[in-house]
């Protein structure tokens, strides 16, 4: 037992004889007086107890310099408390300390918990490496923000207390029962969980980073109105017999009863309007009572939400967003929003509630995007030196990063300076032989894209795709091209002008069969493929000038122009001379026909694959870029398909993929952006599967929305479908690059650490899962095993 007399008396308390007992301490908590890291002041954050009949707890921060002044014994006390694993308040080993005065120059402070109004908790993110806690006092003062440098802090670097591998800030804060000292993901959380033993701490639902200390009744009301607690409806249904009764919700879509788990979800605050509307004895027996409870809950939502939403939407900042809101939400802006919102909620019940999730997710996304756009607009007005900073902030990906302390890679993309004709010409010598390596060319295409001016893409694309050989002279290339052109026409002549090919027994149409799971054993059906190609080409990119048909005058009645109408549906093309079974389809034109011819020829070139819906989407942009050059389009398409399906075409594989990947985001971006995206993907600069990183980047930017609001597979699919034409291409590509680089770096780091550990076989036993070795915690965090599939993502260049 160490006892120290106080020498300094805080101004706030005047009880000279009181002793301060140190109950909690944490080192390397910094105060940042300026924006410069060199000015940061390290210190200890501490909880101290003023021993009295009614003990008073104080939160204090003491700079290291101040402790140093007092000598090593004082310092040791703080370290001792920090290392103490248990936090038994009645511990005999009481440590008493001096409490520093609140001196402005040292930033030291100590305040009773009762004088704290709220804490602003910011867990660590990629953009701010260290988590922080801001302290607001009831009198309106704000104390210096505390930054938790856990990587230096003793309690977080002690070998006996390994940091959890996974960042659990999403389930933040953890329930007190789970808290072992320093078992938390970061120091602030540790402090917060400790504070919970001495004060009522309530997390605001209005602002999730705000934690109220001993909130007043009014504050509780204002900050706990959680309208859409994710599991509220589930709980209501699970607690009633409703779940097992003749529910209108089909069994497979009904929420799983939560009551089966013995412990309540510790992360749920049970404070939403829905939860609170449940009486403690809500074990309602009859389903009609359950229904009543449910409807009452919804009427509570109506009231609370209306108030909250009107507040939000009447704010001037919300004005520009209002037109984007889904109708039910927009109706709130109206003066009679009360009635409209009410009817919207009440007429539907559970169903409306679920679909409201999708609305909310969309709404949240629109708000976020609006914010992002204005942020970018602001950034653009800044001098160019800050632009570098801007691009580096594009990659905020906490998931990958939280597992390893690796620096955030930066994007190399520079889409505002695309490769132009002069630069391209510079890369070739007189004889057409390149002066730069193909990797360099691809890197530049990846970084900058190809200028849309002139016909540069017509030249560059065959090089990126490998239709033209890079290391060759112009003459050599022309010779090889002549062969390819000839081969195309040979392939085309297999069907063109040979109507019998569609009538041959082996290619006769068969009706759809049930062996669809074994596609590769299906009989070839050229006539059927021809029909599909024809139908699909008639509905692919029809807004592109080449594919627009002369518009028919709709005002002229059908009877006066029967022949014109008919001829529009007629085929005159080579592809399907017999039009009896085409049915009524959109009119065609020369280019649509030629496009279909290319796909049908491909069918003869790649006999095992045949036509797969979506191919027309992949081929049409090439046709447009190649300006109707059939042979070039064909051979570029062959290379694109080669990239899509790999050397051994197994259509089953491709089909299982999401449409995003299947048709390379063709329908998610405007046509011109599709061209820019594809030339980046085709370079295979970083990875042959870069498209997956693009998909990941899109998902990542919508991560919060998806995780927060969407539950059902249907909802997620619907949400993703609706992202079409809303994705910012260059931001997404930059994010995809950062994601790839982070991934590559992560893999390299894991490999390096594994290699380092190999010579010491004794440690490998410790790391094995489930081997506790007499309770000794492992000294190293087990390294993830990377599957071959994951490693294949690193393959680049073909």
């Amino acid at each position: 037992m160490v006892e120290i007399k106080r020498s300094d008396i805080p101004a706030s308390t005047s009880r000279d004889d009181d002793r301060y007992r140190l109950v909690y301490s944490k080192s390397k908590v910094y105060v940042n007086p300026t924006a410069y890291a060199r000015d940061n002041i390290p210190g200890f954050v501490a909880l101290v107890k003023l021993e009295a009949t009614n003990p008073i707890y104080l939160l204090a921060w003491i700079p290291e310099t101040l402790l140093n002044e007092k000598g090593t014994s004082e310092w040791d006390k703080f370290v001792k408390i920090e290392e103490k694993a248990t936090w038994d308040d009645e511990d005999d080993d009481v440590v008493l300390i001096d409490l520093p005065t609140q001196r402005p120059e040292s930033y030291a402070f100590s305040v009773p918990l009762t004088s704290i109004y709220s804490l602003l908790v910011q867990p660590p993110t990629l953009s701010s490496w260290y988590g922080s806690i801001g302290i607001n006092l009831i009198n309106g003062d704000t104390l210096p923000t505390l930054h938790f440098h856990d990587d230096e802090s003793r309690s977080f670097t002690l070998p006996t207390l390994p940091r959890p591998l996974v960042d659990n800030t999403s389930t933040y804060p953890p329930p007190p029962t789970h808290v072992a000292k320093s078992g938390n993901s970061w120091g602030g959380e540790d402090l917060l969980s400790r504070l919970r033993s001495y004060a009522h701490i309530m997390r605001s639902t209005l602002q999730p980073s705000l934690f109220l200390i001993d909130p007043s009744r009014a504050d509780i009301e204002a900050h706990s109105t959680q309208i859409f607690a994710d599991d509220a409806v589930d709980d209501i249904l699970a607690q009633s017999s409703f779940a097992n009764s003749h529910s209108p919700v089909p069994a497979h879509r009904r929420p799983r009863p939560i009551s089966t788990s013995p412990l309540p979800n510790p992360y749920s605050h049970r404070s939403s309007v829905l939860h609170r509307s449940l009486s403690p004895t809500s074990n309602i027996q009859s389903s009609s009572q359950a229904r009543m409870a449910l409807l009452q809950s919804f009427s509570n939502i109506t009231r609370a939400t209306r108030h909250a939403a009107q507040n939000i939407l009447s704010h001037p900042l919300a004005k520009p967003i209002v037109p984007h809101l889904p109708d039910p939400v927009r109706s709130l802006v109206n003066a009679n929003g009360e009635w409209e919102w009410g009817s919207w909620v009440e007429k539907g019940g559970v169903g409306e509630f679920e679909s409201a999730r999708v609305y909310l997710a969309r709404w949240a996304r629109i708000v976020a995007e609006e914010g992002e756009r204005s942020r970018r607009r602001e950034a653009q007005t800044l001098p160019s030196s800050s632009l570098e900073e801007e691009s580096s902030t594009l990659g905020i990906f906490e998931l990958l990063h939280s597992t390893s302390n690796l620096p955030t890679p930066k994007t190399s993309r520079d889409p505002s300076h695309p490769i132009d004709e002069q630069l391209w010409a510079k890369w070739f010598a007189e004889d057409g032989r390149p002066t730069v390596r193909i990797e360099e060319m691809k890197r530049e295409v990846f970084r900058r894209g190809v200028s849309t001016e002139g016909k540069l893409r017509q030249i560059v694309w065959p090089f990126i795709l490998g239709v033209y050989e890079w290391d060759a002279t112009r003459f050599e290339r022309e010779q090889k091209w002549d062969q390819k052109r000839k081969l195309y026409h040979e392939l085309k002549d297999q069907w063109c002008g040979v109507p019998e090919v569609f009538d041959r027994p082996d290619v006769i149409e068969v009706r759809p069969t049930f062996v669809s799971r074994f596609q590769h054993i299906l009989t070839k059906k050229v006539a059927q493929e021809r029909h599909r190609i024809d139908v699909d080409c008639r509905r692919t990119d029809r807004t592109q000038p080449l594919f627009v048909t002369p518009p028919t005058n709709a005002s002229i009645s059908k009877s006066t122009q029967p022949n014109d109408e008919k001829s529009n549906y007629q085929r005159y093309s080579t592809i399907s001379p017999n039009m009896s079974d085409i049915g009524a389809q959109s009119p065609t034109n020369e280019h649509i026909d030629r496009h279909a011819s290319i796909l049908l020829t491909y069918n003869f070139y790649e006999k095992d694959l045949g036509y797969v819906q979506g191919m027309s989407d992949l081929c049409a942009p090439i046709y447009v870029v190649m300006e109707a050059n059939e042979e070039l389009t064909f051979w570029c398409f062959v290379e694109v398909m080669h990239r899509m399906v790999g050397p051994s075409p197994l259509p089953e594989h491709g089909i299982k993929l999401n449409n995003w990947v299947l048709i390379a985001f063709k329908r998610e971006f405007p046509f011109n952006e599709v061209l820019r995206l594809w030339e980046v993907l085709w370079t295979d600069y970083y990875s042959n599967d870069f498209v997956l990183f693009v998909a990941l980047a899109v998902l990542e930017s919508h991560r919060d929305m998806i995780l927060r609001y969407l539950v059902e597979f249907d909802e997620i699919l619907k949400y993703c479908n609706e992202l079409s034409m809303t994705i910012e291409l260059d931001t997404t590509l930059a994010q995809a690059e950062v994601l790839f680089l982070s991934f590559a770096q992560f893999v390299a780091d894991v490999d390096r650490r594994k290699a380092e550990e190999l010579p010491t076989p004794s440690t490998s036993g410790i790391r094995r899962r489930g081997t506790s070795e007499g309770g000794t915690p492992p000294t190293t965090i087990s390294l993830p095993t990377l599957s071959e599939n994951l490693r294949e993502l690193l393959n680049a260049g073909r």
Partner: protein
Amino acid sequence: MGRVLLKVIILGDSGVGKTSLMNQYVNKRFSNQYKATIGADFLTKEVMVDDRLLWDTAGQERFQSLGVAFYRGADCCVLVYDVNSAKSFETLDSWRDEFLIQASPHDPENFPFVVLGNKIDVEENKRQVTQKRAMTWCQSKGNIPYFETSAKEAINVEQAFQTVAKNALQQEAEEQLLDIPPMLDVNLTSNRPSLPSRYVDYPDPIQLDSENSQSYGCNC
């Protein structure tokens, strides 16, 4: 009023107008710029008493291997053909069989289908499948309700999908009964209402000259 989520699958050959029908019903819009559906697509439609989930599938049968997951739990299956294409009508049999195999409903004999003959807005002399032929087929398959529609001109689409909803709702009610654990069977038999035969209701008479035949035109 509670909610029923109905899952309706729309099947048929490529280009018969599945997506157009779905969009006409849900969004009251027609566009002749629809793209080939790849894999599956879906929309939800909220009606007074229920929420309809419409799954639109790709017409190319190699995508039907996706089907199992998408078909499961379907409450009604809409078979679509193009009245101007005999082939698209002749494959209805296979689409029906395909569905029954993939979705494997409890009672395949009585599973509700609805057949739609689409694109009736196209001039009469292009028509390849007569109404009589289609209705004969539908009768032979257990009196499947039949409608002739135009997604483009919004003819009969609403009426057709009302029947779809009605039959799907009935199906859902039966599935509910089947979902109840066996231990309740004793009570069930006494409480079970006598369910009307599903196809007592013949489809509404087909009115080709519907007053709804105003054109929505192309919205692009």
